[in-house]
């Protein structure tokens, strides 16, 4: 019943969830068809779709804070990458003695750096449950501490955007250092298996795709639930008139902190699902460009709709895959033009073309 209430008046969301569920059923089935069939979907495509779904989840997380709370975060890729690193550390530990150096105690890059024992922050990552916890706790904690300082001292608007960008930039520089113990420049890669399933197996790939889809669905529903709740209404009030909301008596900083932290956790989960599918995580995931790209997915699809973010993420990334293969020179032109085009001519995104303004919208 709760589900129905959440999706009430959310035509776009209903449609999106229906399509998503259909995909989650159809893609594995089409994958199991014989290769000669015209409906056959290759493992490569399944993995690519899975990757898009994790991007979509990241976009939903950004839309929650940008669309409904008015915080333009230019550092959400940092939370995504932190979740990815937590997953990567678990996957590294699963390699065991199958690395190049055959050292069961230490990952290859640590042997290479002549380290003798596992650093304290790598302890516990042998266990999936611990890694899963860290995937949520590390990005959440960073967002909490960062937000705690930023929101209490009422850093808003452009200033907040710039310091979130500085945050991800600083993290990128830090993770590039070998001394940090996260593989430096090369990052973490060469994974073998997850929960005992080989990452090379087609079945595992399909499983990860389905897991990403389910995570996206749950992420969407929980964001939607927040938006529909009292908390969500206060958030929209903050977005539109922060001072007035404060004067009425709401604790603006707490509302912001709660939603920002939740959004960071979602981004972390997206990153954790992303890493086993692409097989690598390195510091370039922290680069400021990535975070800004996410914002453009959301803007393209339509801010403050949630499903618009999904649409934007899928659309822009499909275009990226197509362009970088067909006309590698032109991708940045196209992306750049997209930024300008959307902000100037499509302020409500693609979905804004098709629908009237509704409650809680921009």
């Amino acid at each position: 019943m709760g589900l129905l209430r959440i999706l009430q008046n959310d035509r776009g969301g209903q449609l999106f969830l229906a399509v998503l569920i259909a995909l989650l059923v159809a893609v594995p089935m089409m994958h199991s068809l014989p290769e000669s069939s015209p409906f056959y979907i290759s493992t490569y495509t399944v993995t690519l779709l899975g990757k898009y779904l994790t991007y979509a989840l990241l976009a939903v997380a950004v839309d929650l804070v940008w669309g409904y709370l008015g915080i333009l975060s230019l550092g959400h890729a940092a939370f995504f990458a932190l979740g990815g690193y937590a997953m990567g550390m678990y996957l590294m530990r699963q390699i065991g003695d199958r690395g190049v150096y055959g050292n069961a105690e230490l990952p290859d890059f640590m042997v290479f750096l002549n380290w003798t024992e596992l650093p304290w922050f790598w302890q516990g990552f042998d266990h999936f449950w611990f890694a899963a916890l860290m995937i949520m706790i590390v990005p959440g904690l960073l967002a909490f501490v960062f937000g705690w300082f930023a929101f209490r001292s009422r850093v808003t608007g452009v200033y907040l955007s710039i310091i979130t960008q500085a945050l991800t930039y600083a993290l990128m520089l830090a993770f590039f250092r070998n001394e940090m113990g996260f593989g430096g420049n090369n990052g973490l890669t060469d994974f073998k298996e997850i929960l005992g399933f080989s990452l090379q197996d087609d079945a595992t790939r399909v499983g990860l795709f389905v897991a990403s889809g389910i995570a996206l669905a749950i992420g969407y529903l929980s964001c939607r639930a927040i938006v529909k709740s009292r908390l969500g209404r206060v958030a929209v009030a903050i977005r539109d008139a922060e001072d007035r909301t404060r004067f009425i008596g709401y604790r603006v900083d707490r509302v912001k902190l709660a939603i920002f932290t939740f959004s960071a956790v979602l981004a972390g989960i997206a990153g954790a699902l992303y890493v086993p599918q692409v097989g690598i995580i390195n510091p370039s995931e922290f680069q400021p460009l990535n975070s800004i790209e996410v914002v453009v997915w959301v803007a393209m699809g339509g801010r403050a709709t949630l499903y618009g973010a999904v649409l934007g993420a899928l659309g822009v990334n499909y275009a990226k895959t197509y362009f970088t293969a067909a006309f590698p020179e032109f991708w940045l032109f196209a992306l750049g033009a997209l930024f300008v085009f959307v902000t100037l001519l499509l302020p409500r995104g693609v979905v804004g073309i098709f629908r009237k303004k509704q409650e809680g919208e921009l």
Partner: protein
Amino acid sequence: MRIFILLLAALFSLNATGKADQLINESELKSAFEVMEGRDFAAKEAALKTILNSGLENAQKIVAGVLEGDVMLVKKTNAVVFVEKKDRKYLATDVLTGEKVGEFSKRKLKKFSINNSLRSFIRDLLALQDLTNSDPEKRLLAVNTMLANPDASHQAILEPLLQTESDEAVKAAMQLSISLSKLSDDDPTVQLKAIGAVKESLEPAVRNKLKVLAETSSSVPVKKAAENALIKIDDRIELFGHLETLFFGISAGTVLVLAAIGLAITFGVMGVINMAHGELIMLGAYTTYLIQLVMPSMPGLSLALAIPGAFVVSGLVGIAIERGVIRFLYGRPLETLLATFGISLILQQLVRTLISPQNVPVANPEFMSGLLEINSVFSLTYNRLYIIAFCLLVFAVLFFVLKKTRLGLQVRAVSQNRAMARAMGVRSSRVDALTFGLGAGIAGVAGVALSQLTNVGPNLGQAYIVDSFMVVVFGGVGNLWGTLISGLGLGIANKFMEPWAGAVMAKILVLVFVILFIQKKPRGLFPQKGRAVEN
């Protein structure tokens, strides 16, 4: 005995007029060359002196040739020759007659073997010759060479020369060198006096000698004096070390200021978030590169032309951006941010497609390279000195434009109260375009300066964009002085942290510091006051 005579001869030969009497007969010269072929290095020293004092016109060239490996022995005829490499073959000329002996392959020739102590001996020997050169710079160089390789014999050599020396700098160096020799004297009173004379010097040789004295001298007062002098010298070296760090910090700071100062106009005064600012800097750097392509033989002139050139190029691009995109987005800062970011991607890719995805070489003109040596432990590089001066100049010009010109007045009026300014007859949209053009042009000029310091490539701008915003925000939006002070402050802080934190960590710490600082004072070091704050 023979060596003694040779030494005397060496001293005597320093007298230019004495040279004629010193002609040594050919057989002696020949035996000297024979000694040079052998492996007895002590005898070789003597032989080299013989050659140098033989009165031959090219004696100095021969000895230098032995050091450099340009003088060789033809294996078959045992003739000593100068060699000149010419496509794999060696062109040989006899050292005595100056006749061409012919071309030889490397196998047919033999080098005179020398070792390290002989090498420094030869350098000393050549320095001694230069001591009587008429060019004071040559003499100074010679004395400095002696200073770097101290020897007890220097005192005897230099003292007579000191009487006739006229150049002050050479004199001071000679006195220092003499005192340095005296440090090795047997008499403690002489040593003490010498310590008093050298304690102001920062020459590494002096420090080494004092260290030896402080550790091994048998005379207690000498030991004490040497220790004290050593402490003083070390203090001064440390001081100069700090000065050097400060200089590097100021230099890094001025680079930050240059990169940020255009942003201080567009962001600080107009409130426009221009993420393409870094790319406007990049365009300036590429303008320098293109102008140098047109006139490759004149790097100095092309650099001078690049300054107005880059200002115009970046300024026009800036005006185009303002007219084409930004003016539709005033009052929507987050959208402006996204749109200008898109423009930055387009500009980057444009440079990659039209010029090259790789870094391009930009030449440094002559006057930009080299060192200004203050003393032996502290020197400043000219390119950084010029950049510092250039930054201050740009700042001064900008300050003048904003405070003293009509445009500046209008800019300030519009930024403080747009409606009122319009009511007073200011064409605000034109002022917006010009202001943005000014900020963009300054970014281009910064690019010219950066092209002299770092690699010029499509990613040049991205490297500075985060830093530039940090500088402007830290300094206080809308405040040029704030930008200057915060840029210098962050640069200096960065360089002082580098020795113990490492370059990357220092940068991270500065970023974290600024992030925390903004939490405490969201409006920066020097917040704007009055009505301008309200929006």
